[in-house]
C-alpha cells in the first residue's frame, strides 16, 4: 500500500505519532482566478489529501516539505501559508513533514518540454501541463532542486492557508451562530463583531468535524502583509547562535560514530584491505566491509577517521579513463553526427552567413559541490523499523534505497529530514544513505552516526560534468550576424538517474540549457547543437547544472563577436535581444552600473546575460588589472523572477550565487589521475574567500509573467561576465575555467 493511504483527513502522521483530534488542511482542488486551467495542479476528481496546515488544541503547525539547503525556503514556505492564514510567523510551529508522494514537486516538471521558458503560448503551456501530469503519474517526486521551490509552492501553499482560514471561520460560525461574512481573522485567531477573539487552536476540534472549505480566492499582492517585504527568517536566530541542529549534529542515546573509506576510483571495489592496525586502535568497535570499501565504527568520529586512515586498501582500477587528458579527449571526439543530442535552435542559415568569421573554443572543468557540512547520516535499524536523520533533496527515494538494503518494507523506513549545511546538488545523491543503511544494518539496535571526512567528501563527490563548446560566428558592418555554438559533454542526467535506477536514453536538455534559451530573437542566424559524450567519471547536478558551462561558452562567444564587430557589449546585446523582460534586465544592469561611464586606469568591465531556469539574469563585473593580478571590484546583477517574495533573502541568494559562480570560475576544478580526484580538501579547490569577494549590487525586477526561483540563475552569467571584464581590462581572452591557470588574481 502506498504511504498515502495511511493519511485520512483528520489524522495526520508526524513522524510515528498520529495526532488525533486536530485538523489538517490541504489542497483538494487547485482553483484560483490566476491559474491557467491547463496547468491545474491536481488531476480533477483526485481525492489526494496534501496536508500542509495542522491545527490542534495546542498549536498551529505548518508542514513544509521542501528541504532547506540554506536557501531559506523553510521560512518562505511558512510565510506563503501564514500570509493567507492570517497568523504571524512566530505564532506557528514548523516541521519538514514525513516524506510522502502528496508533496510531489509540481514546479520541477514544467520545463522539461521543448519550448523556450519564455514562450507563454497555449501550445507551450499545454505541453508543460502534460509533462507535469506525466511526471506525477510515473515518477512522483518529493524533491527540492532546480530552483523549483517557489514555483511549486507559490499557489498551493497560499491556497492551503486560505482554505484553513475559511474553514476555521466556518467552525467559529458553527460554534457561535455568527455568519461567516461577519467574521474576520487576524494574529492566529478569529474575531467576532462583538469583539470576542477565539484562537485557531480553540476551534480545532470543531473544524475537524467540517468539510474543509475548498473554494477560496487568493489575495492580490497589494494586500500582502508578509510577502514581498523584508522578513525575518525563521531559522536566523538558531543559525546565529550555534543552536540550529543539522544532520551532522544529531544525538541519540548510546549512539556510536562511523566513517567510511571507499575506492577513490568511484564505483570500483577493493581487491582486499588490511585492517589489523585499525582494529586495535583505541575506541574502534567494528571494522565493516561495505560496498567498495570499509567502514569503521568507533566511540568518537575522530577515532573512526584515524582508524580508517590506518586501513591499507588494494583498490581495483577505475572503470572510467584514469587520466584527465583522456576525459577531455573523449569529449573532444564527440562532436560527431551520431552523438548529436539535439539542435534546440536553428534560426536563419548560419552556414550561409557572410562577414568576418570568429572561431573560438571553451572549456569548463569538473567541479566539486563541497558544501561546508560534509555528508553524514544517523541511522537506527531495528527489527521492525528504520529511522534515519539526514538532510536530503529527494526524500522518498532515500527511504526506498534504505529498504532495498535492510530488507524492511519501505513503509517502515522513516526519514527525518534535517536542515542542511549547504548542498549545491550534493544531497541529490545516495552514497552516504546507502552506506548508512549498510552500517546500521550491521549494527542493529544501535544508533550510528556516519560522518564523512572532508577528504572522503571530495573523493566521493560526483562533480559537475566537463563541457567543451566550439563556437563560430560572423560579424558584418558593426553587428553580430551569426552565432553557431556546438556543445559537448557527458550526460549529467543519465549519470544521475542511472544511480536511481532510471534509464535515460533520451536527449539530455542539460547539455544545452543556458545556451539555447537565451532569447536573442533579433540575431538572424543562430544555431545551438549539443552532443552527448560517452559516460566518463560519474557526474551530478551542480548548482545551475548545464547552464554554467553552456552559458559560459555562449556568452563568451557572443562577447568575442561583439568585440570583433566593434560594437558596445551592452548595446549590442540589447539590440539582439527579442524579449522585453530580458531587455529590461539588460537595461537595468546598465543603469545600475552606469555602463559607459569612464573608468579609472587599468579597469575593465564585462557584461553577460544568461537565461536559465526561466530567469533572465544580467551581470556586469568590474575588475582592476593590478601589478599583483586581477582584482574583482564590483558586480551588478539585475534579474527577473516575476515576484520577489522576500527581498532580503533574495539579495542574499543572488549575492551567494555570484560568489559561487565567480569563485569556481577563478580557482576550482576537479581533475583525475589514476582514476582518483587530485583535489582532496579546500586547499586544493577553495572557491571564493572574503578577501576576493567584490561588492555585489542586486536588483530584482518583477515584469516576468511567471514566478521563478532564484537559487541557481545568478550562477551562470558570473564566469562569462568576469572573462569579458578581464578581456576589457587586459586584452587577454580567457576561454577555459578555472581562470587562474591563465592569469593571477589578487
Amino acid at each position, binding site marked *: 500500500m502506498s504511504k498515502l493511504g495511511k493519511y485520512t483527513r483528520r489524522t495526520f502522521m508526524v513522524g510515528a505519532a498520529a495526532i488525533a483530534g486536530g485538523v489538517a488542511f490541504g489542497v483538494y482542488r487547485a482553483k484560483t482566478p490566476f491559474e491557467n486551467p491547463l496547468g491545474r495542479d491536481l488531476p480533477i476528481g483526485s481525492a489526494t489529501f496534501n496536508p500542509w496546515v495542522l491545527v490542534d488544541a495546542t498549536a498551529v503547525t505548518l508542514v513544509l516539505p521542501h528541504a532547506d*539547503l*540554506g*536557501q*531559506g525556503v523553510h521560512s518562505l514556505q511558512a510565510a506563503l501559508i501564514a500570509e493567507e492564514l492570517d497568523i504571524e510567523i512566530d505564532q506557528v510551529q514548523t516541521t519538514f513533514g514525513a516524506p510522502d508522494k502528496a508533496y510531489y514537486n509540481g514546479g520541477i516538471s514544467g520545463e522539461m518540454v521543448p519550448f523556450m521558458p519564455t514562450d507563454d503560448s497555449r501550445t507551450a503551456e499545454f505541453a508543460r501541463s502534460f509533462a507535469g501530469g506525466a511526471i506525477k503519474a510515473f515518477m512522483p517526486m518529493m524533491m527540492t532542486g532546480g530552483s523549483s521551490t517557489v514555483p511549486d509552492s507559490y499557489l498551493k501553499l497560499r491556497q492551503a492557508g486560505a482554505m484553513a482560514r475559511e474553514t476555521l471561520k466556518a467552525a467559529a460560525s458553527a460554534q457561535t451562530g455568527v455568519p461567516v461574512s461577519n467574521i474576520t481573522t487576524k494574529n492566529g485567531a478569529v474575531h467576532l463583531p462583538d469583539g470576542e477573539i477565539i484562537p485557531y487552536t480553540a476551534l480545532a476540534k470543531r473544524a475537524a468535524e467540517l468539510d474543509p472549505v475548498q473554494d477560496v480566492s487568493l489575495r492580490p499582492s497589494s494586500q500582502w502583509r508578509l510577502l514581498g517585504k523584508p522578513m*525575518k*527568517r525563521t*531559522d*536566523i*536566530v*538558531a*543559525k*546565529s*547562535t*550555534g*543552536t*540550529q*541542529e*543539522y544532520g*551532522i*549534529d544529531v*544525538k541519540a542515546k548510546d549512539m556510536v*560514530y562511523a566513517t567510511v573509506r571507499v575506492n577513490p576510483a568511484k564505483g570500483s571495489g577493493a581487491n582486499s584491505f588490511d585492517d589489523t592496525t585499525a582494529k586495535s586502535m583505541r575506541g574502534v568497535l567494528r571494522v565493516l566491509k561495505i560496498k567498495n570499501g570499509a567502514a569503521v565504527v568507533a566511540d*568518537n*568520529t*575522530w577515532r573512526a577517521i584515524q582508524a580508517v586512515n590506518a586501513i591499507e586498501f588494494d583498490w581495483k582500477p577505475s572503470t572510467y579513463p584514469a587520466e584527465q587528458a583522456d576525459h577531455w579527449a573523449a569529449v573532444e571526439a564527440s562532436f560527431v553526427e551520431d552523438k548529436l543530442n539535439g539542435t534546440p535552435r536553428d534560426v536563419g542559415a548560419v552556414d550561409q552567413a557572410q562577414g568576418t568569421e570568429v572561431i573560438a573554443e571553451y572549456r569548463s572543468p569538473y567541479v566539486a559541490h*563541497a*558544501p*561546508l*557540512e*560534509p555528508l553524514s547520516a544517523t541511522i537506527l535499524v531495528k527489527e521492525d523499523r528504520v529511522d534515519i536523520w539526514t538532510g536530503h533533496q529527494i526524500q522518498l527515494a532515500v527511504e526506498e534505497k534504505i529498504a532495498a538494503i535492510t530488507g524492511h518494507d519501505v513503509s517502515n523506513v522513516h526519514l527525518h529530514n534535517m*536542515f*542542511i*549545511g*549547504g*548542498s549545491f546538488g550534493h544531497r541529490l545523491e545516495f552514497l552516504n544513505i546507502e552506506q548508512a543503511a549498510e552500517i546500521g544494518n550491521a549494527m542493529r539496535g544501535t544508533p550510528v552516526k556516519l*560522518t564523512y*571526512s*572532508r*577528504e572522503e567528501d571530495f573523493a566521493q563527490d560526483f562533480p559537475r560534468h566537463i563541457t567543451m563548446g566550439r563556437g563560430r560566428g560572423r560579424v558584418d558592418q558593426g553587428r553580430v550576424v551569426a552565432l553557431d555554438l556546438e556543445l559537448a559533454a557527458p550526460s549529467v542526467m543519465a549519470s544521475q538517474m542511472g544511480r536511481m535506477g532510471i534509464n535515460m536514453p533520451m536527449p539530455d536538455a542539460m547539455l544545452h540549457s543556458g545556451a539555447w534559451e537565451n532569447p536573442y530573437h533579433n540575431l538572424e542566424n543562430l544555431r545551438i547543437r549539443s552532443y552527448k559524450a560517452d559516460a566518463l567519471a560519474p557526474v551530478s547536478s551542480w548548482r545551475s547544472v548545464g547552464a554554467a558551462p553552456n552559458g559560459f561558452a555562449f556568452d563568451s562567444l557572443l562577447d568575442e563577436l561583439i568585440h570583433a564587430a566593434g560594437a558596445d557589449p551592452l548595446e549590442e546585446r540589447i539590440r539582439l535581444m527579442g524579449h522585453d523582460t530580458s531587455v529590461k534586465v539588460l537595461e537595468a544592469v546598465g543603469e545600475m552600473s552606469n555602463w559607459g561611464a569612464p573608468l579609472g586606469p587599468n579597469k575593465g568591465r564585462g557584461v553577460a546575460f544568461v537565461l536559465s531556469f526561466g530567469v533572465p539574469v544580467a551581470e556586469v563585473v568590474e575588475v582592476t588589472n593590478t601589478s599583483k593580478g586581477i582584482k574583482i571590484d564590483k558586480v551588478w546583477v539585475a534579474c527577473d523572477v516575476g515576484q520577489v517574495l522576500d527581498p*532580503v*533573502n533574495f539579495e*542574499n541568494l543572488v*549575492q*551567494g550565487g*555570484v*560568489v*559561487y559562480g565567480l*569563485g569556481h570560475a577563478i580557482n576550482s576544478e576537479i581533475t583525475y589521475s589514476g582514476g582518483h580526484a587530485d583535489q582532496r*580538501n*579546500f*586547499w586544493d579547490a*577553495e*572557491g*571564493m*574567500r*572574503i*578577501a576576493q*569577494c567584490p*561588492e*555585489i549590487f542586486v536588483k530584482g525586477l518583477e515584469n516576468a509573467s511567471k514566478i521563478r526561483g532564484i537559487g541557481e540563475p545568478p550562477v551562470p552569467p558570473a564566469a562569462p561576465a568576469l572573462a569579458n571584464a578581464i578581456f576589457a581590462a587586459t586584452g587577454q581572452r580567457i576561454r577555459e575555467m578555472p581562470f587562474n591557470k591563465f592569469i593571477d588574481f589578487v
Partner: protein
Amino acid sequence: MDITVNNQVHSIDVEGDMPLLWVLRDELGLTGTKYGCGVAACGACTVHVDGVAVRSCQTPVSDVQGAKITTIEGLGTPDALHAVQQAWVDLQVAQCGYCQSGQIMQATELLTNNAAPSDQEIDDWMNGNLCRCGTYPRIRAAVKAASTLMKDA
C-alpha cells in the same frame, strides 16, 4: 584530564592529541562548533581559547588544559544574544548557516581587539573562514553593525 568550556569544568578521558573539535562535539555534545575540513582551511570549527580565536580541529586537547575555552554556545544564547550575534540576526547573514558559528567567533575576537575595523582589516581577519554559500557581503556589513552595537552598549 580536565578542560573548562563555557565556564564549566569537564573531566574527559581522551588521548592528548585528540583535536579539541571532536572533544567538544562527540565527548561533550557541544555541536554548535562545526567540522568542515579538519585541516584549518575553513574556520567552521573556530572557538576562543583564552579569548583568542583558534581552529579547534588543529588544536590538540592537551594544549588547552587549564585554558578558558569559549564556544558559540558560551558566547550568547537565543534569549540573550551577544552583540555580534545580534548583528548577524539583524543583517540576516546566514543561508545554510553552517559556517556562521565560526564566522561569529572569528569576528568577535576581531571586534574585541579592534572596535572599528576597516574594510581591509575585516577582509584580512576573516579570510580564513570559508562560506560556501557566499554570504561575505553580509558578513562585512554585520561586522560593522556589531562594531556600532558594541560601541553603543
